């Protein structure tokens, strides 16, 4: 029997061990005594089964920077990280600001077949922040775009932001904002604080993020639109989000794995592998972000996986491009920062890395509870054991891995996409 699998002994979201029968792209049945003849057995004793992870924020670099990543290599990295769907950001070259480009990315994702690649459309033409891109055409295209973002750049013009928020209501879209008041971050290199003062690197003040989040939540509240806040990085942003959500406004927010673990102290090495936008913040910010993810003020984790070619990182700090890899290490970092600390249980992890991002992105086949009849998108994760991160072993084309040499817990053993394994025994299939 082809494409029939029985996963045995898995603990669904940390519950009691059970077996899952996967057939025809769906979870056909679940039960501890299930053992159909002819099905390929995937032993999962001691492993945690979670719905396939969904990333709202991935840079796949294709078209334009295929030397740093392609849809195919990024998809491999995603599968190895336990993801079954990723949202490919629009800041490619050419920019994903037309139906043509988003359909190209969408098709490349289907051809790779390792995870569902859902393109994000640019809010403005060329990410220039001047004129709305044809959002409706992208929504109506084969790529069915629902998330729009100028990520990498902030939609700075408040009037344009308001119109974008309003316009996408027609097709239940959401604007994902990269919150950065750029007049406050000219030449900025790292978090503004004690470290930037000492290192002589121009500071990126927390207020530059918080000012835009405050403005945009007010706008979203005013016009009744959906706003998603990308990569929240400061304690002050959390306070504003808590206040805005308290009003009942339709606001969601994400935090990256790196902002849950790493701090601005790492900049003292001047190694640009730690340069990222928004920058790594202080230990206090990290604590507040973890708490906010636990209590739901921050809705989900998104990787902001940002591959860069070696020559864009083997430079002076100020000359380097910002961004770091994240797909393959996300679940381990969340285990380290949220599960092992007791802040989240596995159901909470499933919520914040799968169900909520799938709902925000409007992906019907992802982020479902693992139950009979649902699409068979799932990941098997071994939470026991730790291993040292080796960037050379990454499926990504790039090596800008900020966790290099770091000991992290857990390992993705298998990933199933629509009933077929994309990863088995920690190795990409096909």
């Amino acid at each position, binding site marked *: 029997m082809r494409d029939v699998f029985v996963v045995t002994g898995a603990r669904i979201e940390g519950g009691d061990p059970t077996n899952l029968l996967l057939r025809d792209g769906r979870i056909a049945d679940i039960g501890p005594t299930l053992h159909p003849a002819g099905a390929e057995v995937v032993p999962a004793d001691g492993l945690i089964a979670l719905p396939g992870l969904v990333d709202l924020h991935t840079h796949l670099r294709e078209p334009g920077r295929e030397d740093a990543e392609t849809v195919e290599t990024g998809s491999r990295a995603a599968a190895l990280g336990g993801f079954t769907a990723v949202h490919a950001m629009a800041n490619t070259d050419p920019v994903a600001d037309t139906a043509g480009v988003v359909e190209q990315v969408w098709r490349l994702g289907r051809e790779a077949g390792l995870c569902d690649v859902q393109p994000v459309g640019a809010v403005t033409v060329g990410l220039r922040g001047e004129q709305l891109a044809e959002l409706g055409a992208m929504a109506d295209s084969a790529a069915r775009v629902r998330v729009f973002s100028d990520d990498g750049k902030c939609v700075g013009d408040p009037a344009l932001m308001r119109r974008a928020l309003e316009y996408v209501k027609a097709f239940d879209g959401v604007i994902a904002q990269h919150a950065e008041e750029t007049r406050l971050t000219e030449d900025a290199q790292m978090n503004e604080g004690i470290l930037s003062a000492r290192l002589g690197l121009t500071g990126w003040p927390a207020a530059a993020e918080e000012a835009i989040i405050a403005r945009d939540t007010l706008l979203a509240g005013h016009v009744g639109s959906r706003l998603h806040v990308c990569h929240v990085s400061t304690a002050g942003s959390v306070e504003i989000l808590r206040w805005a959500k308290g009003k009942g406004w339709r606001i969601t927010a994400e935090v990256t794995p790196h902002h849950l673990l790493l701090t601005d102290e790492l900049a003292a090495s001047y190694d640009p592998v730690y340069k990222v936008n928004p920058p790594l913040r202080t230990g206090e910010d990290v604590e507040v972000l973890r708490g906010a993810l636990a209590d739901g003020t921050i809705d989900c984790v998104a990787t902001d996986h940002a591959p860069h070619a070696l020559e864009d990182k083997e430079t002076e700090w*100020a000359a380097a491009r910002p961004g770091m890899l994240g797909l393959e290490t996300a679940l381990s970092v969340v285990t380290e920062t949220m599960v092992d600390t007791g802040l989240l249980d596995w159901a909470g992890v499933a919520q914040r890395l799968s169900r909520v991002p799938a709902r925000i992105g409007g992906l019907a086949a992802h982020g479902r509870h693992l139950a009979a009849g649902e699409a068979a998108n799932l990941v098997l994760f071994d939470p026991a054991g730790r291993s040292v991160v080796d960037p050379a072993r990454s499926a990504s084309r790039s090596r800008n891995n900020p966790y290099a040499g770091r000991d992290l817990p857990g390992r993705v053993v298998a990933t199933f996409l629509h009933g077929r394994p994309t990863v088995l025994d920690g190795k990409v299939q096909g």
Partner: protein
Amino acid sequence: MIRHLLSAADLDRESATTILDTAEQMDRALAGREVKKLPTLRGRTVVNLFFEDSTRTRTSFELAAKRLSADVINFSAKGSSVSKGESLKDTALTLEAMGSDAVVIRHSMSGAPHRLAGWIRGSVVNAGDGTHEHPTQALLDAFTIRRRTGRLEGLRVVIVGDVLHSRVARSNVLLLHTLGVEVTLVAPPTLLPVGIEAWPAEVSYDLDAVLPKADAVMMLRVQRERMSASFFPTQREYSRRYGLDRQRLARMPEQAIVMHPGPMNRGMEIAAEVADCVRSTIVEQVSNGVSVRMAVLYLLLGGGSRRESRRRTPSRGGVMSSDDALFPAEES
């Protein structure tokens, strides 16, 4: 000794004092010679790698290396492959292949010397990186103060001006604190970095209030273009509030000295008559710079005990202190 000099924080009190003492010895040894040259670094190669124009710092390092008989190569970014897009890493590998023992680097980006140190085997000396540090400037300033006043411990030094963008200020705060000096920084609040509260220094916005207790006042260069970025309203207002003129000089104790790392904006942060008065050490700072840089190159390249040179490793052990080891009989 340490292998690189990237930050004034690399120096503890003992090693900083060793550098200052060695500079004194260099100075004395040369004073008695007709040919102003010591054979100490003969056969060693020092590269001046300047990505930013700075005639005075480059010349000072060049003279220091030449007085120690080292071979000196000036590698400036302009007119070289660097201006054609060659990366810092490629430049580093090129210098490495040519066999340089020390690279003196000036760069407009903070941390560039740290990056370079990761790519080459020789010593790296930071000759000013962006808005980060300029440790040999701090050493020559400490040397100048010690010469004029006879000590450092317990002195009060006031540093005035664009602290936010100043590598001189960062290195001086670290080094002078290490050497037991009380440092006070004075500037308009816009030109003090957020996070300065962690520095081992006092901060004041009122120059007149701190002058009467100062043993030395160090004026920093203020670039006029800061005005257009709203750091202060006008040159004249800056000068009135933070410039050192004759009236302010009169508020300082009689023995207190006036310093400036150069180049000066006369009439902006310092009045011409103050710059040229007998209490000004500005010209001395320049000549002391050569002695201090000789000491740094000597200790990094020749006098260090733990340094493993891939070329000839001098067998002298320990931190250098005796004149015998410092200045072997001249060979020519």
